[in-house]
């Protein structure tokens, strides 16, 4: 049994309570959501917080709803709920694609969207999903709330824009017409982190792509949205050549490292291959042609 170092534990009953505890306890305190990233790190003594503020009783953070032209998801929404949500499946099938290959049921029953984004692991799948969908993050503190884009949310590996006395409370995804999305992941084994994953989303205007986005995981310091891909997709007619071109751009814009999961060359190849596949599938879905 791996055992963590000593720590104090408080259970917050509301977002307000959680933030005030955080403000009082300072940088030695950490929120604990699903615990599936934080607890393993504590057991390995890679993380040694003095205080844990448990936010599992913050009932106002569990939801997936449509509001003001957006899908809004509470930070404590668990993988399991993202997987099961028909609302998400209707607008963003990329979530179910991704959730089917994130971890295993035990982890999915507890792990949360907020915890996933705040962990900011370069291989994290939901960050790639949110990047693909151009999501923004609502960050609260006692002095109010601010909304940051995914691009600004991740400031480095395992680092986010959430400050010491702040909390991520909500993820917002804009709803646009005629869109669809897909997610592709290669893993060495079920439940393993991605060797590489790619998300794609397209919004169609008749036979052409009005807007397209691609987000990759495990190919660099942070989950990467590939801007130049969007440039070639804008206004283009879907074709194998277009997917290949997009894939090549994705490959050229990532900087993976060789590790136990695979060589940098292989990961670069996957960035190309999976971008192609995710785009192909998104377009098929958006145009009602998916088998």
């Amino acid at each position, binding site marked *: *049994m*791996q*055992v963590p*170092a*000593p720590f104090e534990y408080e259970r917050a009953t509301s977002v307000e309570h959680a933030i005030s505890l955080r403000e009082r306890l300072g940088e030695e305190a950490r929120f604990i959501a699903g615990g599936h990233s934080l607890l393993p790190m504590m057991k*390995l*003594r890679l993380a040694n917080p003095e205080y844990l503020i448990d936010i599992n009783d913050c009932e106002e953070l569990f939801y997936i709803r449509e509001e003001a032209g957006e899908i809004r998801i509470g930070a404590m929404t668990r993988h399991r709920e993202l997987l099961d949500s028909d609302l998400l499946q209707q607008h963003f099938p990329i979530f179910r694609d991704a959730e089917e290959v994130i971890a*295993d049921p035990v982890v999915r029953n507890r792990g949360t969207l907020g915890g996933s984004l705040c962990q900011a692991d370069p291989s994290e799948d939901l960050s790639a999903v949110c990047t693909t969908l151009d999501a923004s993050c609502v960050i609260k503190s006692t002095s109010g709330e601010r909304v940051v884009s995914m691009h600004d949310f991740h400031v480095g590996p395992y680092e986010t824009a959430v400050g010491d006395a702040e909390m991520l409370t909500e993820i917002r995804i804009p709803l646009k017409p005629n869109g669809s999305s897909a997610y592709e992941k*290669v893993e*060495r*084994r*079920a*439940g*393993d*982190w991605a*060797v590489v994953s790619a998300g794609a989303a397209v919004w169609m205007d008749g036979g052409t792509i009005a807007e397209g986005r691609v987000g990759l995981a495990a190919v660099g310091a942070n989950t990467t949205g590939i801007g130049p891909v969007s440039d070639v997709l804008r206004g283009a007619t879907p074709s194998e050549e277009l997917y290949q071109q997009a894939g090549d751009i994705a490959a050229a814009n990532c900087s993976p490292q060789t590790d*136990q*999961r*695979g*060589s940098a*060359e*292989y*990961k670069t*190849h*996957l960035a190309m*291959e*999976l971008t192609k*596949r995710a785009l192909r599938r998104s377009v098929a879905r958006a145009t009602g042609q998916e088998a």
Partner: protein
Amino acid sequence: MTTTEPAPEETEERPIGFGNLLRKEDPRLIRGMGNFVDDIQLPGMLHLAILRSPMAHAKINSIDKSAAEAHPKVVAVITGEDLAAQGLAWMPTLSNDVQAVLATDKVRFQHQEVAFVVAEDRYSARDALELIEVDYEWVDPVIDVRKAMDADSPVIRDDLEGKADNHIFDWETGDEAATQAVFDSADVVVKEEIIYPRVHPAPMETCGCVADVERVSGQLTLWSTTQAPHAHRTVYALVAGLPEHKIRVIAPDIGGGFGNKVPIYPGYVCAIVASLVIGKPVKWMEDRTENLVSTGFARDYVMEGEIAATKEGKILAIRTNVLADHGAFNGVAAPTKYPAGFFGVFTGSYDLEAAYCKMQAVYTNKAPGGVAYACSFRITEAVYLVERIVDCLAYELGMDSAELRLKNFIQPDQFPYESKTGWVYDSGDYEPAMRKAMEMAGYDELRREQAEKREKGELMGIGISFFTEAVGAGPRKDMDILGLGMADGCELRIHPTGKAVVRLSVKTQGQGHETTFAQIVAEEIGIPPEDIEVIHGDTDNTPFGLGTYGSRSTPVSGAAAALVTRKVRDKAQIIASGMLEVSVADLEWNKGSFSVKGDPSKSVTIQDIAMKAHGAGDLPDGIEGGLEAQICYNPENLTYPFGAYICVVDIDPGTAVVKVRRFIAVDDCGTQINPMIIEGQVHGGLADGVGMAMMEMIAFDEDGNCLGGSLMDYLIPTALETPDWETGHTVTPSPHHPIGAKGIGESATVGSPPAVVNAIVDALKPYGIRHADMPLTPSRVWETMQGNHTPPI
């Protein structure tokens, strides 16, 4: 006379003897009511945690333990220096080397044991480790096994007197000159470097123990995760100088062993020393990382393989040159005269003219081990070598790999067959097993499908492996471990009411001994298995024997159980002759009762006889009361199970992801005792094989940091990577085993990796690929497709 219950009827669901029977141990285990080492709580028990080295090779300049000692819940902090004062800093390994219990001079692998803390609870013990200050001085490590013997390589084992290099041993088998002659004149010679990387048994339950030294009597009771309680007791007596009759080793329920729980680890010795010094029970239980990074690994062979054949595909000779990485201490678990285990069976299932193997074993700055991880003492490596090189030959000859194997099998009339490296295969009938597997697979149809797919650029592979194992070590004339002969005892007692208790020297770690051994006794004496209690894993309550590993339980201890039961039955027959007033020769045995020949109405059941044996009234002349016996069985030879495996894979050409579509396994383990348990053993081993072939490897970076320290880094397969297993069997009994059984525990782990690798390599044939090394992760498969295959070590 007291009456006994009538003997129950035998049915298919309820065999009195061999047949499918639900496991007797399962109700306890599946309800979570097993009793594992970590479940043991004793009054006043303390907890031990081990401080491990962060570096692979470093001098220890000093250790400051004062802050740890000042921790309010710490009872003791012990370093190598403290142990050295008692003469306990070093202990023998299973291979006549020594290993540091706690490092004194130098650390020799990352995570080596440096000090331990004993505290009131597990958390405090772990916390106090952070308070120990060790001043290490970096020494260049030896990580690349190929450079271990370079002249300028740092010497790891400078503790050994006069040691000036990293050499452990050279070993050879077969006839070098005769093999050279065959190679010189052969039509076709194929050479390939074939690597079996370092893997770990990774049992779900990590290693640990509770040591309790009773202060007044000096009696040590050790609850321990051991596959060999008796052997461990003797070794503790020899190292720690404790009198053997004052040591009791108990292996309670064990959560998987796979060879990992054969060696004695420093942690056990630390716990014993701690209890001795402090006078209280002490528990030590590894965490997951400690288990993966410090306990016995397996394999780690770099094998250069060569095969010689005629152009028609008659295999003439196999030759191999092996470089073996044994880590920092030679801790190989193998019989003394077999430093490379049973690797000598690398000639496989084929009738050759000559064979030769040369091996060099070296030290590196990695964890020690070389345990029999479900490999029957290195047969995994041997089978992988031969089955891979045979496929390389098929590739060069452009011959179907099934046809090539069929052409070269040892024929049924050649058994007992003496191989060119001196192994006497007891029995075998290979072609029917191979044909059966091909038929189950629909082999010809698969090849047709493959040809069609290749036309379309799709990648499908069919891999075959045909293995022969040598298990059941072993005859005491040439097999021992640390001087202890590899025989096994067994004791059987029939109680007055006809219920029985059988005591074994071997120990289950999940294999189902409590069921299988009850069935062996039941088959011989007709008492239902549920009426037979199987006692094992406690040195005070079982006869001496060497334990469970190398698939030896059924071949050795199973034979002992059958023979001791026959001994009891012989006595029962004499008592029955008195009861029925006929001569012994006039009695006939019908499983469970003796009857008078020609008059079946005159009979007595074994239960009646048991009561008579313990009851009032006279027994036949010269017969003592009671119905029990004990024996020690010394096997005449090893047994040689075999099997034919076929694996079918599909590879996504875009991502190089491999999907194992089908796996067909036909096993022959001789007489089958419980086919359901056999199938379970095969399922587990096949999953293991998929893991090793596709994802498992204990890797190191160039500084010697172990990269496999968690189950997120060291991957083992899940149900999603493994197909529905398709199993079948043939039955070729062992001629020298009392019930003809051969052992099945490791067959699938031995036989499956080459089948998976052969299938993947076969799928890559359109790329001109003849060989690729494990673990075949998507990345390694993709690099192979690009022509950039690099060896994993």
